[in-house]
C-alpha cells in the first residue's frame, strides 16, 4: 500500500515507516509563534531550563497587533525582543515584515517536505508549498522550545480533486467557501486535506496559499498541494537550503475523495456567524455594507490586491463604506507600491494600512460597532470577532469585497470584469 504525502513527510522525520492513526514524536524543522510569544515565554520560564534547545528552528514574527496599539502590547513586543536577543534567535521578524503566514513562505521557511508547527491555527497555510504544517497550542510551543520535540498523530487524508477552470471574478477563496459550505466546518477534523486533480496544478501559489489557509476552517490538521514546477519556480531565490519534494503515491490510501468542477463555481459568501453558513452571491446581494477589509493571511497577496484594483479602477468607493486594504507583507506592499496597484486603490478611496493582521482578530485598526456589516477577505466570521457582538462579518473573495465596496452593498463582482 502506498503512502500519502503526510505519512511520508512525517515518516522521514520519525525515521521509520508510519501510517495514519499512529502517534509519533518528531523534531520539527521550524516552530512558529507571533505576538503570543510573550505568553509562551511565560510558560517556557516555568519549565526550568535557561536556553531553548534549538534556537535556529524558532521563527517569531510580530504581526498581530503591530505597531503596538496599547501599552500592554508594547510591553509584550519588548519582552519578545529581549528574549530573542537573550536566546540568540536569528529568525525574528519585527513589525516591518508582515503576517507570519506570508512571511514564512517569502523568507523560504515553507518548502516541500518540511515539518512546521505554529502556535496559530492558520499554520496549515504552508502546505501550499508541500510542507506538513499544523497549528498547536501555547504550552506545547513552550515545551517544543525546550525539548525540540513534539508528539503528533499521523492524520488520515481526505483528497479533493479539482477540475475545470475558474471563471472571471471567481477565485480560490470562493472554492474554499463552497467546499466548507457543502461539507461543514468539521468536515476534515483531525485530517489532512490534499488538493489534487488537473485544476490544482493550474492554480497559482497564491491561490494554493488561500486554500491551504482555509483548510483550517475545514477543521483540518494540515492542507496541502503536491509540490510541482510552479512551486519550485516560486521558491527560487527564497528557499533556505535544499529540500526534498514529497508527493502521495498513486496507490496511497485516502479516507475519502471529493470532486469539484471549478468551471461552474460562482462567487460565494460565508454569512454570519459561521464559516460554513455559505451562500452564492445572488442570495445575499444588496445587503448594505459599512466596512470592507481586503487583506489578511487568506487574501492579502499581490494577486488579491490586483484583482481588487481591476474592479475599483476609475471608480469610487461608496461614501458609506470604509474600504481597508492591508497587504499581507511588506514585500507585497512594496511590489504593489511599485506596480501602481496601491495608487489605483488609494485613488478609489481605499484606506491603505500597514502590513499585519489588522482588524481580523478584533484587536485594532478598524473594529465594528453594533449593527455594522463588514465584507472581509479573512477566514473567520465568528460572532464578535471583529468588534461588537452584534456586528456581522461576511467572508468573501477580494473581487466580491471590492465590488461591494463600490456599491455600498454586497455585490456580484462579475459585473465589473
Amino acid at each position, binding site marked *: 500500500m502506498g503512502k500519502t504525502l503526510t505519512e511520508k513527510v512525517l515518516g522521514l522525520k520519525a525515521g521509520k515507516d508510519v501510517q495514519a492513526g499512529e502517534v509519533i514524536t518528531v523534531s520539527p524543522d521550524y516552530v512558529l509563534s507571533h505576538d503570543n510569544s510573550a505568553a509562551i515565554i511565560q510558560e517556557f520560564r516555568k519549565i526550568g531550563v535557561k536556553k531553548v534547545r534549538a534556537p535556529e528552528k524558532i521563527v517569531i514574527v510580530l504581526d498581530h497587533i503591530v505597531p503596538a496599539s496599547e501599552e500592554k502590547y508594547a510591553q509584550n513586543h519588548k519582552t519578545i525582543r529581549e528574549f530573542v536577543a537573550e536566546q540568540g534567535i536569528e529568525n525574528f521578524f519585527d513589525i516591518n515584515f508582515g503576517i507570519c503566514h506570508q512571511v514564512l513562505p517569502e523568507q523560504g521557511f515553507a518548502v516541500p517536505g518540511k515539518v512546521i508547527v505554529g502556535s496559530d*491555527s492558520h499554520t496549515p497555510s504552508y502546505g501550499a508549498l508541500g510542507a506538513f504544517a499544523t497549528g498547536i497550542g501555547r*504550552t506545547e510551543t513552550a*515545551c517544543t522550545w525546550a525539548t525540540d520535540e513534539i508528539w503528533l498523530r499521523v492524520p488520515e487524508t481526505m483528497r479533493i480533486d479539482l477540475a475545470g477552470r475558474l471563471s472571471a471574478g471567481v477565485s480560490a477563496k470562493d472554492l474554499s467557501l463552497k467546499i466548507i459550505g457543502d461539507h461543514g466546518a468539521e468536515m476534515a477534523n483531525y485530517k489532512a486535506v490534499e488538493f489534487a486533480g488537473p485544476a490544482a496544478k493550474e492554480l497559482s501559489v497564491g491561490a494554493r496559499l488561500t486554500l491551504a489557509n482555509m483548510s483550517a476552517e475545514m477543521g483540518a490538521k494540515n492542507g496541502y498541494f503536491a509540490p510541482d514546477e510552479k512551486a519550485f519556480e516560486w521558491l527560487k531565490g527564497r528557499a533556505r537550503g535544499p529540500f526534498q519534494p514529497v508527493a502521495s503515491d498513486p496507490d496511497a490510501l485516502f479516507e475519502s475523495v471529493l470532486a469539484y468542477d471549478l468551471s461552474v463555481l460562482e462567487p460565494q459568501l460565508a454569512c454570519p456567524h459561521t464559516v460554513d453558513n455559505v451562500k452564492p452571491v445572488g442570495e445575499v446581494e444588496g445587503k448594505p455594507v459599512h466596512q470592507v477589509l481586503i487583506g489578511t493571511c487568506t487574501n492579502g497577496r499581490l494577486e488579491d490586491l490586483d484583482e481588487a484594483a481591476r474592479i475599483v479602477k476609475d471608480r469610487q468607493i461608496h461614501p458609506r463604506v470604509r474600504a481597508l486594504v492591508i497587504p499581507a507583507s511588506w514585500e507585497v506592499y512594496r511590489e504593489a507600491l511599485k506596480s501602481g496597484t496601491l495608487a489605483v486603490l488609494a485613488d478609489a478611496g481605499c484606506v491603505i494600512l500597514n502590513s499585519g493582521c489588522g482588524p481580523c482578530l478584533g484587536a485594532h485598526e478598524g473594529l465594528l460597532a453594533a449593527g455594522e456589516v463588514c465584507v472581509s477577505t479573512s477566514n473567520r466570521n465568528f460572532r464578535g470577532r471583529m468588534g461588537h457582538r452584534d456586528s456581522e462579518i461576511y467572508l468573501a473573495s477580494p473581487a466580491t469585497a471590492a465590488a461591494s465596496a463600490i456599491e455600498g452593498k454586497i455585490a456580484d463582482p462579475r459585473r465589473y470584469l
Partner: protein
Amino acid sequence: MSAGKVWKYGDNVNTDVLYPGRYTYQILSPEEMAKHALEDLDPDFAANVRPGDIIVAGKNFGCGSSREQAAACLKYAGLKAVVARSFGRIYFRNAINLGLPVVQSEEACDSLERGDEAEIDFARGEIRSPRGTFRFLPLPESVIGILQAGGLLEYTKKKLASAVPPKS
C-alpha cells in the same frame, strides 16, 4: 476507582461556551477559572460539578479557538475526563497537554445520560456504568505519560531533569 456523575451535552460545544472570551485575556487563578467553566452553556455545571465527574458530549467538542483555558477550566473544576464522539483537533491536543483526559466513544455517547454514575479505566480502555461497559481505544503510551505527569509542562520538566544535559 470511584465512580463520578455524567454531565451530558450535545454537538459542537465550542471554546466560547466552555470558557467565555471575556475572560480569555485575564489572568485568573485555577479556582476562578473553574467557576467560569461552561458558564454560557450550563450555569449548573460549575456550581455542582464534583471531583471525578465526567462530561459526555457529541461530536466536535471544543471546536473554535485555540485558547487553552477551555480545557484548563474543566480540569480545575475537578472533571475526570471528557468523553465525546469527536473533538476539535487543537482542543484534543490542549486537553492532553494540560492533563485533562479525552476519550472517544460513540457507544458511551449513545447510551449515557445526565446524572448516570460512570467510571473510566484508562489502562483497560473501559467506561463502566449501570448502562453497560463501553470499550475505547486506549490513548498511546506516550500520551498517557503526559496525562500521568499532569500535563506537558510537568512531563517536560521531569524529562529534562532526568535526561543528559543538552549539547551546548
